[in-house]
């Protein structure tokens, strides 16, 4: 079909052909050393002013931080979160009205289990990271990714949440020596192996990356709760978020784009995720780090170990970066498009049902004329049996899982007269997951072994299903809609 392109490329803002070296700073007229945004030339000190100001403005605009709030900074050692920590430090050091008025602490989540690092390698990394964190003078904490598997379902009473055994920080009264703290960090637990099995069960790298980011977010929120923080700041740059917009579209996660890129992501009710680096491109961040000697620690990730075409995330990142090189407005255009989106039918945020995995609004209550029902129909018509294809693989119930001490396990399986007290909640079917997971998470778990899913997903799904069954039973006697 013929494409109409309005004389195509001529409308695109082509990359400026001049280098920074031949230009003057747009603020003071000194020699420029760096070009920010698309074509703003800055000298070193004006760039710093611009950068710090923009960072502060991002916080200011949103008005979600109150004076004296405690904010947990998610530090990965990478370029973006290192720059974020540096900017917070500068912001706190500034005088008078420009000062950032919150109390920060750092948290590092070790993901060595994902890339198959040995216990020793992980310990070395944690040592290096703790050296960097110690330098900041802020309180800091270290946790390992597999601890996410210990997280109880969100609806369970808060008293059941205890500090994880492997959780360590300089706030621990028993250990004032750094070495002592790191020795105590358990990098090889029963959960480590379970986490490895879970990751190994993922049939695609796309699903694996989604799972890792889900575990990481869950753990961040969980640790924040334990430590009494209600805000967690992450270092995602505008570049990363733009590529996330496109990747989310591609993964059927369109409905979560608005929360996934928001400055204040409120999907976790009591803990808000903040994204103060969202107005910077990755390139600007790298320039800042280079000009102001901000150290970062390169660590291999699933993405860096795989090729560009290995997963939807890596493909999308490569795609966006290539476009950005040729058309420097790509990232900002995609970003602003994302800012204009909202989730369809999200007029009443309190009544929103949430996905038990990613906590974004459930996007599966769609009409009959929809991609979802068309897909279901396709599966039905070419299988004659509906979409419950994973039924057999998940019949196997784990007997008496030791981690299952939640009081809700005393409840009835929901199938009998209420007297059985059986521990059915550990078994999960694709069928029941399809009722409690969003479209994108259903696609993700399609590629995984359902029996190995973290208990926070399984338990929540089971709980939601039990409640909806209870509701069905009494619905004729309910006088008004209650959520």
């Amino acid at each position, binding site marked *: *079909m*013929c*494409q*109409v*392109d*309005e*004389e*195509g*490329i*001529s*409308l*695109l*803002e082509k990359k400026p052909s001049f280098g920074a070296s031949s230009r003057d700073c747009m603020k003071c007229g000194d020699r420029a050393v760096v070009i920010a945004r698309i074509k703003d030339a800055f000298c070193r000190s004006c760039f710093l002013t611009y950068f710090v100001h923009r960072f502060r403005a991002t916080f200011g605009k949103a008005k979600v931080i109150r004076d004296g709030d405690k904010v947990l900074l998610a530090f990965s050692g990478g370029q973006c979160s290192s720059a974020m920590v540096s900017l917070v430090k500068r912001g706190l050091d500034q005088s008078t009205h420009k000062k950032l008025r919150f109390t920060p602490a750092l948290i590092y989540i070790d993901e060595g289990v994902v890339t198959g690092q040995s216990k020793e390698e992980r310990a070395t990394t944690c040592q290096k990271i703790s050296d960097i964190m110690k330098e900041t003078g802020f309180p800091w904490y270290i946790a390992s990714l597999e601890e996410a598997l210990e997280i109880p379902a969100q609806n369970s009473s808060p008293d059941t949440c205890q500090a994880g055994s492997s959780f360590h920080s300089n706030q621990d009264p028993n250990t004032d020596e750094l070495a002592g703290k790191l020795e105590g960090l358990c990098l090889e637990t029963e959960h480590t192996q379970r986490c490895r099995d879970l990751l190994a069960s993922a049939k*695609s790298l*796309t699903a694996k990356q989604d799972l890792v980011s889900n575990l990481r977010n869950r753990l961040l929120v969980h640790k924040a709760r334990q430590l009494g923080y209600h805000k967690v700041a992450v270092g995602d740059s505008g570049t990363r978020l733009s590529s996330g*917009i496109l990747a989310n*579209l*591609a*993964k*059927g*996660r*369109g*409905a979560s*784009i608005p929360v996934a890129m928001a400055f204040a992501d409120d999907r976790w009710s009591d803990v808000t995720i903040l994204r103060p680096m969202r107005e910077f491109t990755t390139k600007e961040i790298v320039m800042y780090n280079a000009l102001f000697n901000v150290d970062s620690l390169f660590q291999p990730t699933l993405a860096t170990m795989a090729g560009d*075409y290995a*997963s*939807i995330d890596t*493909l999308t990142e490569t*795609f966006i970066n*290539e*476009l950005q090189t040729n*058309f420097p*407005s790509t990232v*900002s*255009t*995609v970003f*602003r*498009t*994302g800012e204009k*989106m*909202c*989730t*369809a039918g999200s007029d009443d945020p309190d009544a929103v049902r949430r996905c038990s995995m990613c906590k974004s609004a459930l*996007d599966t209550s769609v009409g*009959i*004329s*929809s*991609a979802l*029902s*068309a*897909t279901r*129909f*396709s*599966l039905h*018509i*070419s*299988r004659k049996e509906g979409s419950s294809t994973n039924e057999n693989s998940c019949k196997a119930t784990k007997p008496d899982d030791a981690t299952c001490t939640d009081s809700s396990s005393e409840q009835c399986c929901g199938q009998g007269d209420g007297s059985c007290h059986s521990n059915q909640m550990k078994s999960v079917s694709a069928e029941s997951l399809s009722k409690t997971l969003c*479209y*994108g998470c259903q*696609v993700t778990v399609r590629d995984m072994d359902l029996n190995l899913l973290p208990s926070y997903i399984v338990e929540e799904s089971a709980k939601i299903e039990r409640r909806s069954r209870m509701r069905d039973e009494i619905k004729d006697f309910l006088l008004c809609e209650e959520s």
Partner: protein
Amino acid sequence: MPVSCRLCGGSAILKRPKTGDALCKDCFFSAFEAEIHQTILDAELFKKGERVAVGASGGKDSTVLAYIMKLLNERHDYGLDIVLLSVDEGITGYRDDSLETVKRNQMQYDLPLKIVSYEELYGWTMDAIVKQIGLKSNCTFCGVFRRQALDRGALLVKADKIVTGHNADDIAETVIMNVLRGDVARLRRCTAITTGADGALPRCKPFKYTYEKEIVMYAYFKKLDYFSTECIYSPNAYRGHARTYLKDLEKIRPSSIIDIIHSGESLSIKKDVKMPTQGTCTRCGYISSRPLCKACVLLEGLNKGLPKLGIGKEHKERKKLALLQAQSFNQTIEPATSANVTTESSTPSSSSIAGANTVPQRIDF
């Protein structure tokens, strides 16, 4: 080892790209047909007694569409009056073969065919336009003119509706394009199964959830005759990127195409985002957010010997037009208005969408 059909146990001949299931030929046919029928029912695309124009280009999508519309109409008694509608741009050598295909289809399927020519609709053939403006921007013309040609042709044959062969791949690609160029108005509309219900003739897409590969499979095994109609003018580089991206996504996860459509369906645009108001062209009545639709601006340029008018940022041409207008008595267009026209329906003011002007626009479906 022969693979057996998941449905009937016979020997399978293909693996469905959409579901990954191995099926025999007959089971694939019935699944494919049942899905299109279901889509038509679910979206309530047609009403009994309606006259429906099937846009027929001789390409695979429209060939399969014509075939299946006829088949389902009879099988399920839709009660539709189906007309094939083809556009002859007047490009020597380019349309000849595809129009032959359409004519053959007409005979095979026994459906009435109406061919509308650019000459008939606009007074210009594409060949004549190319002579005027050279090869550089003619895709702007043939795309804008073609989109309207279908509507104008459909009005000529008194159709109630236009059915097009846009498939799931096309729609997914358009979602991506609209995000890349920041076009929220089209982003909102492009996943709708029926568009243009208010004012212009409604257009609907029964292949919205159908994979391009399955359409090819269906045509291949049904031995449907089609002509490959890629536009002879090179497609835009930017859309090319989006297409490559989509193909790569599909390799990584075959369901990506439908996943993207789901994403598109579950998004809407914030209420405080300014949207262009849709009106109609003061000259031809076609739907347009400007007083003059794109086609009329292009025609104006052609007829006045300023063929670059309305294409990109040709300020000089606009100034020339303004001059001409100032001299003319019966001129009704204000230069400022016509000069701003870049797309006929939805480009918002540049202040409302940052970057909208930095990425090329395309006429949507």
